[in-house]
């Protein structure tokens, strides 16, 4: 049971600010999506609309075929974990979990206990007394144990150290394998998590820059290095994302799928081909979104 997402010309404005600007996007149910974008690119705005925290200013939003805003069926199946934990500051961790158990129809109590043990959450402590990382761990526990068919994590790992973050990724993957659902992870830690994703969505300035399978994205970014004029001749007509020059040597990042023939041709021309990490592709793509078109 997992929910699909369909957006058409979605816009969201707060007063003068346009947070989302005619965004169209199609997410099939049951996959793990990575949502990337620079600060202020509209990630949280988009997720807030999906989780019915805000109503779209214009356009169509459908989650499992229905408008999620004030929609009982969709809202109880959607869980949005932000960077701030949504629990009462003065309750204990245990009370915060009980609260969620009462309101979440798919809550798994045993799994919640397992997560509490995994993250070593102090159940008797008040939420306000938790460290930043422990607050995040509580949020993640709430997000995973509610088993919502649409589960969203928005930078939910703030303050967590690397071992705790990896524990989160491990739990996410194994629970997703056992209980498939639609998961959207918004993150800045691209290198750390991109292998968790099946597809990546990149936003910039409230618009969609790219929606692609991660593996396709990996294969598409290529850096071409060699004598400037050879590189220029070779990359003419290709989608160039960025270039660097050192003396007569030029390195160009292209967004293009290189088949074996093209690779051989490059090598024959004395050019060096390199891989471009997803993070670098992201940096290039969000620096000049028009390069995508």
């Amino acid at each position, binding site marked *: 049971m997992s929910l699909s997402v369909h957006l058409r010309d979605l816009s969201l404005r707060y007063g003068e600010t346009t947070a989302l600007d005619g965004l169209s996007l199609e997410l099939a149910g049951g996959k793990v999506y990575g949502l990337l974008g620079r600060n202020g690119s509209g990630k949280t705005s988009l997720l807030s609309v999906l989780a019915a925290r805000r109503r779209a200013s214009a356009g169509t939003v459908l989650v499992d075929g229905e408008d999620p805003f004030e929609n009982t069926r969709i809202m109880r199946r959607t869980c949005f974990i932000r960077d701030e934990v949504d629990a009462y500051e003065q309750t204990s961790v245990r009370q915060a979990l009980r609260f969620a158990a009462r309101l979440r129809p798919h809550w798994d109590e045993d799994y919640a206990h397992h997560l509490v043990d995994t993250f070593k959450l102090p159940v008797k402590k008040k939420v306000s007394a938790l460290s930043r990382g422990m607050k995040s761990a509580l949020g993640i526990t709430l997000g995973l144990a509610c088993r919502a068919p649409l589960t969203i994590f928005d930078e939910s790992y703030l303050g967590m150290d690397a071992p705790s973050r990896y524990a989160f990724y*491990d739990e996410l*993957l*194994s629970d*997703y394998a056992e209980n498939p659902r639609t998961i959207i992870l918004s993150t800045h830690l691209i290198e750390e998590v991109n*292998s968790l994703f*099946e597809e990546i969505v990149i936003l910039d300035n409230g618009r969609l820059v790219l929606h692609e399978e991660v593996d396709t994205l*990996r294969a598409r970014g290529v850096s071409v290095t060699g004598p400037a004029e050879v590189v220029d001749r070779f990359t003419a007509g290709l989608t160039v994302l960025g270039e660097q020059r050192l003396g007569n040597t030029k390195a160009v990042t292209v967004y293009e799928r290189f088949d074996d023939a093209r690779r051989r041709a490059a090598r024959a021309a004395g050019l060096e081909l390199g891989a471009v990490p*997803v993070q670098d592709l992201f940096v290039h793509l969000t620096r000049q979104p028009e390069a995508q078109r």
Partner: protein
Amino acid sequence: MFDDRSPIYQQIAEKIKEDILAGVLQEDEKVMSTNQYSSFYRINPATAAKGFQQLLEEGILYKKRGIGMFVSQNARETLRQQRRERFFEEVVDAMVAEARMIGIPLADVIRRIQDADGGRS
């Protein structure tokens, strides 16, 4: 574990092939499930499944419904054959080019190879 050079699913397929070639995985031996693989290497299960799918299509693995995936009978031999075809182009030609570039006479290279072979037999 995985580099950025190629799609992860291809790297998964390559890794299993290496294991079969090296004898770590025997013929008719059960391989890890997609989910085990996904958890172990911290990768998306769909990505892992795609790697396994490729091996199924190539006939390297076969599926027993409800039980799992196994190494095919002739998988090792098939892989050895494929590698042999690529060996001269990818290994020998590259070595010769490198030797020329840095000024090692081919005779030295040949002597070295003969020594290695003599040492073994």
